[in-house]
């Protein structure tokens, strides 16, 4: 029987704030297969970060569940999935090398065996000259490279990304998007299933195989759209097909949010 890498089954999430119950996610279901790049797209506050955290095992669903290869996700497990953070979340007192080493240490890889892995991902992310630098010496783009290398170094099955480019300037973000796509395409890297959260339609369409569109809060799946525009899509600025896809998604979202009904 075919088992997808990640399955999200009827996931709902509620928070209680004082006496009020706040519903964040409502009956969200989708699945991700191996070697797929999936983006979850939605307006801010729709619960997409919560969804990612449930998949990462950092949060638990109130109803429904998330599965990895058919088994329940009960807590964080770096061998299953590693996360890249919007605000990098690097440890300020550790060098680039030591930050990348962090995940390997936590899963108990002995020191001698850590070194080749860390160096491999330092090279992959072009961080060779900065191995001994501290985060405060790096630009935002370089910090996120360290964040990506740190996540890849544990060689997880699934890479989770929480708006990984939104704290970067436009040019740096573009370069990093290409780098991430290259890593995804690269047969040599162990990690090849990617799940990314974003609020930028163009970013989702440029990167993903499938875009899962969430409604405004409480988040429900209002679209699961395969993007079959041929890759690489680096020239998307000139591609009418690309813009048609974006417009379609944009209409879907504005219809849902009730904004711009004239479209």
């Amino acid at each position, binding site marked *: 029987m075919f088992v997808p890498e990640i399955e999200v089954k009827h996931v709902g999430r509620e928070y209680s704030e004082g006496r009020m119950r706040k519903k964040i996610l409502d009956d969200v279901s989708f699945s991700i297969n191996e070697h797929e790049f999936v983006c979850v797209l939605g307006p801010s506050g729709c619960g997409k970060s919560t969804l990612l955290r449930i998949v*990462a095992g950092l949060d638990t669903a109130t109803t429904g569940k998330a599965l990895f290869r058919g088994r329940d996700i009960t*807590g964080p497990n770096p061998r299953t999935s590693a996360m890249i*953070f919007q*605000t990098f979340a690097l440890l300020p007192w550790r060098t680039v090398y030591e930050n990348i080493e962090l995940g390997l240490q*936590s899963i108990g890889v002995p020191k001698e065996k850590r070194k080749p892995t860390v160096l491999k991902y330092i090279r992959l992310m072009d961080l060779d000259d900065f191995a001994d630098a501290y985060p405060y010496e790096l630009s935002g783009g370089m910090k996120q490279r360290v964040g990506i290398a740190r996540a890849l170094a544990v060689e997880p099955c699934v890479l989770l990304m929480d708006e990984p480019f939104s704290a970067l300037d436009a040019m740096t973000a573009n370069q990093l998007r290409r780098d991430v796509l290259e890593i995804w395409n690269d047969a040599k890297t162990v990690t090849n299933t990617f799940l990314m959260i974003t609020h930028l339609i163009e970013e989702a369409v440029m990167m993903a195989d499938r875009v899962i569109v969430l409604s405004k809060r409480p988040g429900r799946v209002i679209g699961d759209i395969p993007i079959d525009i041929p890759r690489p899509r680096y020239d998307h600025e000139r591609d009418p097909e690309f813009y048609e896809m974006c417009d379609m998604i944009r209409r879907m979202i504005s219809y849902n949010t009730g904004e711009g009904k004239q479209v």
Partner: protein
Amino acid sequence: MKNLKTIIAVLLTLLAAPAVVFTYFGQWDSVFANPQVLLLPYFVFRSVLRMLAAYVLVVIFGLTFGIIAGLYRRPRIFLLPVLDILQSIPVLGYLPPVILMFSGALPGELGYELASILLIFTGMAWAVTFSVLGAVRNIPNDLREASNAFGVRGWRYVRHIVLPAIFPSFVTGSILAWGGGWYFLVAAEMLSYGTSVHVLPGIGSFLGSAVFSLGNLPSAFLGLCVFVFVVFFINSFVWKPLSEFAKYFNTQTMVSEGTQPLVYSEFGPIRHLIYFVDKLDAKYGDRLDLFMVSLQQRYGKTFRFLEHVPSKKRHTRATLLTIALYVFLFATIMACLAFFVAAALSVLPLQSLAHVLDTRPNLQNLPLFGLYSASRIFVAYIIALAWTLVAGIAVARSKKLQAIFMPMFDIGQSTPALALFPFIVIMVISMFGGSGMSVEIASILLLLTGTQWYLFFNIVGAVKSIPGNILEASRAFDLRGWQFYSTVVFPAIIPGLLLGSIQAWGGAWNALIVSEYINYGGQVYQVQGLGAYLNQATLAAVPEPWEITLIVATMSAIVLLMNYLIWRPLFNYAERFKFENV
């Protein structure tokens, strides 16, 4: 208001505790044998008034010099060392000059009252001044440039940019200052110099005399509970809400998502003070601005030296000059101190220093005594560090523990250690007898009371301010147990720990004088060290001003050297690895 129930429960417990204890042990008679018991409310009133008066002076002093030294480089060159040296002098080192200046100068009680207020001032002033100075220098550059671009300069810059921007640090400094003031209240209300003691009515002197003069422990216990009640009351209804309010002035967190909307009712009764200041500002703010700006235009040229010059890189020569300036100012201030002490003891003119060194052979032991005292503080510091690290991290990480223990630690911090002294002395002496070892233990325990809370609350604060994304990342990478503490928590709290250590060592040197020489029940318990030596020197049949000054100078020099050679370099190094810089 948050935690209102807990606060009221604690306050009621503090009032009920003595009643329960006295009824249980049948001590009511001996409590009322102390005739002053009925005057307690009046004593509280006088003490709070005294603290308030000192604090008003501190606010004026701290804002004036903190802002001037923070904004302008040239005055700072001179002000910074002077403030630094004055800060390093133990509070009780100020006793002689303060008494001399005021006790004789004014008629009756008024002179002593002023002397007492001034002594409290010396225990309060430095925390506020240095907080203000640091905050002024930390005003973000973009804010500075934006105000400059909009022509907000001079007085307007101070009122509309500087004052709001430094408010959080000002409140933090004020909390430390009040803590310092309470700590020395007993000493400040029982002004003793040489062999004479002048007692001012107050809760501190009530406590002191209940123990030392009357030996009436039940009434002392009552006094202690009332003391803690007052401190806890003021902390809960003034300082905690004000520091919550101050968070809205934080220039760093403007973009953070977690900022809650401002709800004034959460600040409790103190919100009326905030409203009042707002109203004053709305009514007279513009007029004040116009007046100050016109003053500035008329007399501005006189203050030309107050130009904001961006600080240059430090060169070796500049460092040497700074050291020379420090040495010169240190010598001058100490010479002034010697003169004041001599005048206070009416043994002017001063004898030559060489002669004094010959006649007081103990002075040659100063370095040795300094070493003894420093080791004693070191032991107290290690003990404090051990328990505060464990307790601080545990309390900060667990909401449950927080709910149970935080009120207890708040009370612990509110208990002015000097007021606890008699109880510690009685406990240790009854347990270990009056031998040398037990005095040593008592002395270290007393030092502990002056150090531990600085460490504890800085550690709790540091653990709580570890950013959420870092905690989440360590969970995502499944860091657990020891690995989580060694890779995330310990490194993260180092800046806070160092700040707490600086404060703790400062507090310890201050507590030294009362910790090494304990006069209880007509008997003197002492250990060898600078604090005990200072007490001996002041109580000697023929006190020698130079001797007293040299002891104070040694203490102050050790404090300064430790700050410059150990704490500041460590702190500056740790600063680079703070979360804000990443």
